[in-house]
């Protein structure tokens, strides 16, 4: 009941102009109030790519900085940028906006994205230098359209303009005359999510050395809905992403659950592998355009840069145990059930205490907990608090209630067992899974032996239930699992033989 984490990838797409025009907060402001003072002010708070690629939490996300290094890094992080920007890290990259618009066009199979011809040519040259983008994909980039054609599509056919350096460089077109599920905004959001998933998958293939055709199944777990007016969320992103990345032997499906989606998707994929149904399963997600600049009103008010300017993507490869790759325990999963209750202690109990009990462990047997991992420099100015710290304190408080920790030890427990929030407020992205890459590195290095990954999803936002959801899983070293397996099989067999041999000897003696 274990599955190996064979590899991970984590990428950001730095998209301040998509954020400025189509992030939900500025988009709704523009629709309802026109050119407001907030929007005029927001325009001067956009960050450059160089700043975003020098920002310590972003570097930690792509693996250009360790989490231990981030913990010691001088704060505030936004005033202590790294000496040099880093585009690539051990897990992935921070892709600039012009190249990401190009990747969106590459990922588009319905001629939704149009790019201006000179812009497209310039982007092609830049994408050619990207080590994960093969020539076959570059061949999918359109030659482009004349600017007048794009302007006509915007003014006459409800297309949405795409910008780079404040100039129109393309547009996102609608997919149907009257279907609201296929209007230009929805398709822009969905193509961006798909392109982010493609980038994460390409980096995952590079990080693991796997060929695209070796992938058997993809589970996508973003928060977007692909469908039409007859089936709003019919799906699916997974197979669409696999197609672009050349995974010809893969199929796929989508798993949803707000921020609990990724953890539930890992469990779903891991279970398929452990059951022997499929060999190499990928869990992935692209980012959410509407979440960009979500808290920008507060960032502007407080004179801060509009920090929520990156789409977040990730991909995780799950496969059979190999004795090297860290493993996920499928025999001790956390589940926030319908009847578990909504209080913080009930939720934490379901996601932490109950899986610990399944393994006969205590709170101190976990070296690192990873719940919501939002960057506090984004959330604190908006009044949403330090979400990771709040979650770690709640786990500590539950340990006190269970008599496993003194109340006075909570701050030290949080310091030792928690990790700094380093992830963009991209909904499903911060929920536990960004730690999987770092956790696997630490487990392989022997720095930690066990991590608990926790996802919590706000189901109530969809107005179908008042409940939230949650799920969790442990990651442990491969070696420990091997020795546990030996105890359950070989050792017991040997023990039985010894006992039988003793019985036989005693019978002979009689």
């Amino acid at each position, binding site marked *: 009941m274990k599955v190996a984490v064979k590899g991970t990838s984590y990428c950001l797409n730095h998209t301040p102009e998509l954020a400025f025009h189509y992030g939900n907060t500025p988009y709704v402001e523009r629709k309802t109030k026109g050119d407001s003072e907030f929007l005029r002010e927001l325009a001067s708070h956009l960050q450059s790519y160089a700043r975003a690629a020098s920002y310590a939490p972003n570097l930690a996300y792509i693996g250009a900085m360790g989490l231990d290094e981030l913990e010691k890094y001088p704060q505030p992080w936004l005033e202590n940028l790294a000496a040099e920007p880093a585009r690539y890290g051990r897990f992935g990259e921070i892709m600039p906006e012009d190249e990401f618009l190009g990747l969106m066009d590459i990922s588009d199979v319905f001629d939704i994205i149009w790019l201006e011809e000179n812009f497209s040519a310039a982007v092609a040259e830049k994408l050619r230098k990207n080590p994960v983008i093969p020539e076959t994909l570059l061949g999918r980039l359109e030659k482009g359209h004349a600017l007048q054609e794009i302007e006509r599509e915007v003014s006459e056919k409800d297309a949405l303009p795409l910008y780079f350096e404040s100039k129109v460089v393309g547009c996102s077109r609608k997919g149907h005359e009257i279907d609201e599920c296929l209007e230009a905004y929805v398709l822009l959001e969905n193509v961006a999510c798909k392109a982010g998933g493609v980038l994460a998958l390409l980096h995952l293939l590079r990080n693991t050395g796997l060929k695209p055709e070796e992938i058997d199944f993809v589970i996508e777990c973003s928060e977007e809905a692909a469908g039409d007016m007859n089936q709003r969320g019919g799906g699916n992103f997974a197979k669409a992403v696999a197609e672009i990345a050349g995974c010809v032997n893969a199929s796929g499906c989508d798993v949803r659950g*707000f921020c609990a989606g990724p953890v539930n998707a890992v469990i779903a994929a891991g279970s398929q592998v452990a059951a022997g149904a499929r060999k190499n399963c990928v869990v992935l997600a692209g980012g959410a355009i509407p979440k960009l600049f979500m808290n920008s009103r507060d960032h502007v008010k407080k004179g801060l840069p509009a920090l929520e300017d990156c789409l977040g993507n990730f991909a995780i490869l799950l496969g059979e145990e190999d004795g090297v790759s860290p493993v996920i325990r499928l025999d001790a999963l956390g589940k926030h059930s319908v009847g578990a*209750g*909504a*209080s*913080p202690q*009930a939720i934490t109990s379901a996601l932490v205490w109950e899986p610990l009990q399944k393994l006969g462990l205590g709170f101190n047997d976990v070296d690192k907990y990873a719940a*919501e991992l*939002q960057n506090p420099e984004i*959330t604190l100015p*908006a*009044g*949403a*608090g330090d*979400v990771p710290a*709040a*979650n770690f304190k709640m786990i500590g408080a539950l340990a006190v209630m269970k008599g496993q920790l003194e109340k006075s030890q909570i701050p030290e427990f949080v310091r030792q067992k928690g990790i700094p929030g380093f992830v963009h*407020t991209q909904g499903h992205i*911060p929920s536990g899974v960004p730690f999987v890459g770092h956790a696997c590195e630490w487990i392989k290095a022997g720095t930690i032996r066990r991590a608990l990954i926790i996802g*919590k999803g*706000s189901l*109530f*936002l969809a107005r179908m239930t*008042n*409940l*939230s959801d949650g799920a969790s899983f442990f990651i442990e070293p491969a070696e420990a699992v091997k020795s546990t397996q030996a105890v359950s099989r070989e050792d017991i067999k040997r023990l039985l033989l010894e006992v039988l041999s003793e019985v036989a000897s005693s019978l002979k003696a009689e």
Partner: protein
Amino acid sequence: MGRLAGKKVVLLGERDGVPGPAMEACLKNSGADIVFSVTECFV
């Protein structure tokens, strides 16, 4: 029955703090009239 008896109460919960249903459970025997309860997510 406490000092909230007969009072109209609006509950605004937060997912990573105290959710609405948890506050409703606490006020169950207070005699308060819960006219609105919601949980929101601010991240």
